[in-house]
């Protein structure tokens, strides 16, 4: 082991620019995942071609379809940006689903129980409360990690279940719609608590999500805080040695990550369903993890991948009516992540082996 030099950087020995390789890998992964999905469809007695065509039409075949896809892309962008920020610092926030939920709960409290504010003030209040709710929920595992050294993987995940049960508790109890007979939702929000519509059915949340993407891109690339986050992510020990406040950044980054998810929750209750209900999110916070990784944690790429994954999700909902389970979309999404990871590490192994072999040959050639 000792005499062999470390692996050469990935650009050496390969003439393909890195971004082309990354894009090619992802296109390949999407196609391969669709192919495997087709295999599952065929094996369960569905016609894969018909199903995929129906999904494509349902996701992008009409202006209604495009609007529905964009509506689903909003929470995916926001939660995707949130978890990507945490992942950039090496924090495994897999609690975006819960943070989204608590953000939605906090906003719903204002809309349902709070004072009757005029429209702009009410919207501002919903956004502030949603951000605060998501941030607060993320601060629980963040504090446990920063002050006690407790791993955030399980804690963020456990808090998802607690948050979802909290919604159940309220919509079956104190917040239940008195006119709906034990249906799991609250009464509808007042008009003043509904997000403005941009076009069609697409709400104001799209502007919030795109602004968040720009803000995050600028923060990570062009601010000292962004530099700290990336340094800690690359090597916490080196960052500590350089005097960077790791503990404080755990709190700040997790709170920001949770705030973005909380904002996604506000968008859902205030922009889409106009009430709070059980099954508020079809797993946006989990899909966000895949979106973030497939986008290599890059904010602008998250916007694109979120739209593609929203299309897949929307297509999945549409084909339910033809008897194909909507879960096909979730399966394909997880397969894409799996294949992206697989191809990236495969390429890395091949390069590493080549470099090691070349170094060995060089060492043997010069040895007496």
């Amino acid at each position: 082991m000792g005499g062999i030099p470390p692996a050469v950087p990935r650009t050496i020995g390969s003439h393909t620019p890195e971004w082309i390789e990354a894009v090619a890998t992802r296109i390949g992964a999407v196609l391969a995942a669709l192919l495997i999905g087709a295999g599952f469809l065929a094996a369960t007695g569905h016609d894969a071609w018909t199903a995929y065509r129906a999904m494509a039409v349902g996701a992008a075949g009409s202006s209604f379809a495009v609007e529905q896809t964009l509506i689903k892309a909003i929470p995916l962008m926001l939660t995707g940006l949130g978890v990507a920020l945490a992942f950039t610092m090496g924090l495994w926030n897999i609690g975006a689903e819960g943070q989204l939920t608590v953000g939605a709960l906090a906003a719903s409290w204002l809309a349902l129980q709070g004072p009757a504010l005029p429209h702009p003030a009410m919207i501002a209040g919903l956004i502030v409360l949603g951000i605060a709710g998501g941030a607060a929920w993320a601060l629980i595992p963040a504090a446990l990690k920063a002050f006690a050294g407790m791993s955030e993987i399980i804690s963020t995940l456990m808090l998802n279940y607690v948050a979802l049960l909290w919604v159940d508790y309220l919509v079956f109890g104190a917040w239940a719609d008195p006119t709906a007979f034990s249906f799991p939702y609250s009464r509808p929000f007042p008009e003043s608590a509904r997000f403005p519509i941009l076009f069609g059915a697409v709400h104001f949340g799209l502007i919030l999500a795109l602004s968040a993407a720009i803000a995050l891109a600028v923060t990570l690339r062009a601010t000292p805080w962004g530099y700290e986050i990336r340094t800690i992510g690359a090597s916490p020990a080196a960052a500590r040695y350089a005097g960077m406040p790791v503990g404080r950044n755990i709190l700040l980054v997790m709170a920001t990550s949770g705030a973005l998810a909380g904002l996604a929750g506000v968008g859902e209750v205030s922009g889409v369903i106009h009430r709070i209900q059980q099954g508020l999110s079809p797993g946006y916070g989990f899909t966000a993890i895949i979106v973030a990784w497939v986008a290599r944690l890059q904010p602008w790429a998250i916007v694109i991948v979120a739209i593609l994954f929203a299309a897949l999700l929307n297509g999945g909902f549409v084909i339910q009516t033809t008897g194909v389970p909507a879960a096909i979309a979730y399966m394909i999404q997880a397969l894409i992540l799996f294949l992206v990871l697989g191809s990236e590490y495969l390429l890395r192994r091949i390069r590493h082996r080549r470099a090691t072999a070349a170094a060995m040959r060089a060492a043997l050639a010069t040895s007496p």
Partner: protein
Amino acid sequence: MTTGQLIALLAAAVTAGTPLVFAGIGELVAERSGVLNLGVEGMMLVGAVSGFAVAAVTHDPWMAVIAAAGAGGLIATAHALLAVTLGAEQVTSGLSLALFGAGLSAFLGKPFIGIPNPVPFRAVPVPGLSAVPVLGPILFRQDSLVYLSYGVVIVAWWWIYRTRPGLHLRATGEDAATADAMGIRVGLVRYASVVVGGGLAGVAGGYLSLAYTPAWTENMTGGLGWIAIALVIFSTWNPLRLLGGAYLFGAVDALGFRVQLLGVETSSILLRMLPYLFTLAVLFVITVLQRQARMPGALTRPYFREE
């Protein structure tokens, strides 16, 4: 609480803890070889749906258990491929398996929603042992899968601490390079451990759909796979301690159901938060006590001979 109620509660704790025993032992074996597999929840779900489907079609409960184990083991190979062969980052790989399992099980399970299990496992008192005071009704008036779980724990303990392959397993998980130098086939040991772990997670899921619930519903594991991962940390990678931990969690779960029967005025929804909050509390205590320091030395570290 009367003695009778306490015994009933403890018996319910054993039943509720059984899926955690299977899944926890599976994860423990994988981690002992140096591979963290966060896909437990997904492997359990695939096991649950596969077991249920085979039970519904063949009406053979044991074929169903074998199918659950096979399905769990099969999708675990995906994680082994990424984590062992390609040296991928294990957290991301495990997460993708968890998400894939959730999607796949929901896809495959659609036709089985709302169908009762034609051949559920029911309690089979063990002759003689079930008559033992206190322990008899708690441990020996359970279904056959619970008895199987006792066997799994004993075999796992004996295998890990008392056999040569078990020594190889521990060596691989502590220091793969040294194990390799000793002539142990590191890759093979890790593949086998991940697949066995997946098989046990599959049985854990099968326990839910074949004995505990017994029906198939989407995402029926409700976080048990993640609790099983937390339990492995709690157990300090010791199968016997894992058994105790699983029953402790089972007791918390069972208590949630019974508090209301005891006449305490509480919301059943809030009580369902208990296992998750309890997991957080337990992990916090373990972290503060620094018990996790005893984890396998090579956990999450890929191994390649030429590096």
